[in-house]
């Protein structure tokens, strides 16, 4: 009795030119595996009209195809041997059907490329191999067919085998192997053929044994949240976040980060409807419970603390364009990635890919149907993604035309980044020059602008020092303005919370305000917990790009001192669990590695600290 335990499911894509005999090979696999059912056989004997079965007609699904003798779309075939279950994505070979090949290859572990022994590796074969590699398939098989027509000539086969190995190496495929076969006669497909010089296994034997397991739980954790299970009443259980694992291994007790918000929490349960699991890995569909009451929903990505994915609005991706109408820079589309759909604008094209070699050609003006190109995209909100080479699920997306609702493109993320500091983000909006140079303004007003950025734990003394500094500067006749973190949250950042993403956005806003003030000639004094080094670095880069002084001050007060002071009673509330994501209690603080000034808040009187800051500011001025 067939049993498919052991190696599990093998998804393979087959590709070949019209006359390579691909359909015959598939028919042969099904036929010889004794699983081609008898009534289907009746039909093919009728179609063939002759004594030999017309194996190819087994796979021609639609009437139009049978009438025209072509294959117009990806077809899926299934067969099971005692050792393994197989899903074949049968993709047509004509050049204009690149999109079908890409579709079929997107879910495949292995690709079988049909090569006619008489013609060897042709342009088409190179395309099929390259597209397979592009889609992340790491196992290529060359089925060198019609060996009977070249009298099982060994040198002929060896030459093709060698050329195929070189090709695979060129396109970066790890495992490549060639088989001399005759699909028509069944030689070396299921049973060994007549060539005594060939001592390898038959193709099916190889397919039954090949190990394609790539990332069975090895990579970093990725779980796109798909659905929130809310039982109608508490008796039926707690809220669960459901999704299909896309990477890594998930266990109860794991610390996870919810992206894009960035909140951290601990997994309390990993389960299916059948009960709790000790661990889960791709492709399991699971439901997880988490410790904190966070705002988690569809489209969020649960990841491990280490090796987090990229977060940003600027995407460079390899896109296969699948629509008849061209894709142009400036086009707006919907982008579906994992369980999230966002709006995206095409910024431009980097290079058109040569599909046979995977090498870059010149940047195209537009993409036509079946073109594959490296494309720059910009999303409306940050995308959370991995490079496709690292993860075939969290690195993949489709593009959807919002007018027709059609799927018009397939994309593979190459890189992801946030807009560079100070970079123009609104194309079409040009920075308006006032006509007054900064140096002229500062000289006339007898002032110099700068930003002082105080970072440290809550209650470390930042604001006290900042207020003293403001007073000292203004008393000395120098414009200064204290931008207090708490006060800013009442207005400019009133819409933001305390998740890492919101903190980052808050710092971006404050950084820009400080930069404008400094440019105007004021000393902007920022007092902000700003716990993350990367975010503070962004603020610094904004100033560097504008040529403005930026003084980072680390108010280094021991946590226990801060907690003891607690002038606003926040630590008490945080300890009571009333404030989630409270820095120093339930959220991390990253001290600056290279601050311009360190203030030991527990040891030094604030007055003295403020004086040292005035001195530091003088130093930052050009002599």
């Amino acid at each position, binding site marked *: 009795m067939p049993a498919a335990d052991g190696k599990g499911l093998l998804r393979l894509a087959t590709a070949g030119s019209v006359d390579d005999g691909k359909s015959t090979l598939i028919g042969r696999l099904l036929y010889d595996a004794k699983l081609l*059912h008898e009534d289907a056989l009746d039909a093919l004997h009728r179609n063939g009209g002759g004594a030999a079965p017309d194996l190819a007609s087994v796979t*021609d699904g*639609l009437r139009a195809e049978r009438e025209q003798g072509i294959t117009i779309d990806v077809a899926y075939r299934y067969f099971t041997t005692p050792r393994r279950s197989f899903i074949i994505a049968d993709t047509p070979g004509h050049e204009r059907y690149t999109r*079908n090949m890409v579709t079929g290859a997107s879910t495949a572990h292995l690709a079988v490329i049909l090569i006619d022994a008489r013609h060897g590796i042709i342009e088409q074969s190179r395309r099929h191999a390259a597209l397979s590699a592009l889609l992340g398939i790491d196992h290529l098989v060359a089925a060198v067919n019609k060996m009977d027509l070249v009298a099982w000539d060994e040198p002929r086969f060896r030459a093709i085998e060698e050329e195929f190995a070189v090709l695979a190496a060129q396109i970066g495929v790890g495992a490549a192997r060639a088989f001399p076969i005759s699909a028509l006669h069944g030689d070396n497909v299921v049973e060994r053929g007549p060539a005594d010089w060939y001592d390898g296994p038959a193709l099916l034997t190889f397919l039954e044994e090949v190990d394609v397991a790539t990332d069975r739980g090895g990579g970093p954790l990725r779980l796109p949240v798909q659905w929130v299970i809310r039982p109608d009443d508490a008796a039926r259980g707690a809220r669960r976040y459901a999704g299909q694992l896309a990477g890594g291994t998930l266990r109860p007790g794991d610390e996870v980060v919810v992206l894009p918000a960035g909140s951290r929490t601990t997994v309390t349960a990993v389960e299916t409807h*059948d009960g709790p699991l000790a661990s889960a890995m791709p*492709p399991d569909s699971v439901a997880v419970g988490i410790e904190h009451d966070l705002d988690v929903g569809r489209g969020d990505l649960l990841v491990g603390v280490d090796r987090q994915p990229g977060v940003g609005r600027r995407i460079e991706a390899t896109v296969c364009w699948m629509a008849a109408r061209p894709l142009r820079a400036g086009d707006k589309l919907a982008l579906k990635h994992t369980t999230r759909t966002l709006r995206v604008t095409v910024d431009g094209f980097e290079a058109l890919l040569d599909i046979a070699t995977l090498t870059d050609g010149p940047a195209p003006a537009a993409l036509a149907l079946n073109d594959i190109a490296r494309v720059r995209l910009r999303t409306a909100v940050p995308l959370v993604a991995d490079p496709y080479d690292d993860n075939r*699920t969290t690195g993949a997306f489709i593009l959807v035309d919002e007018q027709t609702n059609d799927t018009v493109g397939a994309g593979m993320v190459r890189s992801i980044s946030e807009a560079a500091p100070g970079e123009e983000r609104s194309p079409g909006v040009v920075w308006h020059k006032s006509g007054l140079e900064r140096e002229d303004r500062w000289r006339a007003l007898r002032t110099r602008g700068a930003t002082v950025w105080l970072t440290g734990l809550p209650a470390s003394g930042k604001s006290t020092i900042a207020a003293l500094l403001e007073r000292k500067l203004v008393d000395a006749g120098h414009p200064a303005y204290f931008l207090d973190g708490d006060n800013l949250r009442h207005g400019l950042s009133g819409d933001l919370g305390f998740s890492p993403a919101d903190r980052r956005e808050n710092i971006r806003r404050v950084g820009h305000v400080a930069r404008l003030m400094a440019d105007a000639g004021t000393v902007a004094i920022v007092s902000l917990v700003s716990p993350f080094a990367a975010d503070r670095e962004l603020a610094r880069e904004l100033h560097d790009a504008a040529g403005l002084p930026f003084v980072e001050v680390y108010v280094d007060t021991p946590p226990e001192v801060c907690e003891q002071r607690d002038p606003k009673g926040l630590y008490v509330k945080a300890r009571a669990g009333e404030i989630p994501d409270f820095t120093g209690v339930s959220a991390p603080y990253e001290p600056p590695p290279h601050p311009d000034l360190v203030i030991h808040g527990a040891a030094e009187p604030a007055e003295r600290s403020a004086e040292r800051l005035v001195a530091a500011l003088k130093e930052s001025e050009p002599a």
Partner: protein
Amino acid sequence: MSPPDHLRALESEAIHIFREVAAELERPVLLFSGGKDSIVLLRLAEKAFGPGHFPFPVMHVDTGHNFPEVIEFRDRRVRELGEKLIVASVEESIKSGRAREEWDPARPGTSRNRLQTVTLLDAIDGHGFDAAFGGARRDEERARAKERVFSFRDDFGQWDPRQQRPELWNLYNGRIRRGEHVRVFPLSNWTELDVWRYIEQEALELPSIYFAHERDVFDHDGMLYAVSDWVNPSSDPFSTSVRYRTVGDMTITGAVRSRAADFATVIAEIAATRITERGETRADDRTSEAAMEDRKRQGYF
């Protein structure tokens, strides 16, 4: 015993599909016939949404010619799950003039099978459903092999095989306009054997007609038809041990001679069989090679 890897992968894929539809479409419905494929669908829906309720109702398109054992099972199973059942009646479509009777008890092999399309599309329209889960599998038949998991239907409920949306990775595009709908097939990648093995693994109850039982049948055109109120025997009825491989109308569903009375023996018989289930036991698919393709284009399941 842990389930075979490939069944676990197929199960997870189906659960993923269920959740995608529930999240992205507004008014899905699960089409339930009482047959083994839709019984597996129900189980997968439980796994996708439990311990919560299904975020959609269950609907049966009832020709009035079903096996009584199946109707009894349908009502009981949906009640046990605590879900909502909608019955769309072909009989009523005929009475209201929406569909014209094609069944003739004097001609075995005639049925109301095709009329289900009218009733189904009217029900989808009437309830405003924008997605309908079905139990179809790609291994069943040639036209299905090319159908997407999310199979888009225009506002006449029709399928255009040449205008299908590319379907990549596990990213399904369920965007539609008002009046259009998507047929969703979570079992697309399952084979008949997978379905049976899953039923065994999950210990799912099936209508009794799936297992060998004594029944009065008659032979017509090489198929064994059940003696029922809806068909006049064209040959002498006789009693024999049979089981059914598919569940359809009594008017067109053929029985196979079998003594397989439990899972193990049924699965052993299926593993050994050389005839596809629709070809063996469905008169509707034997009409022409392109029979299914034509019906699908018109909006059939």
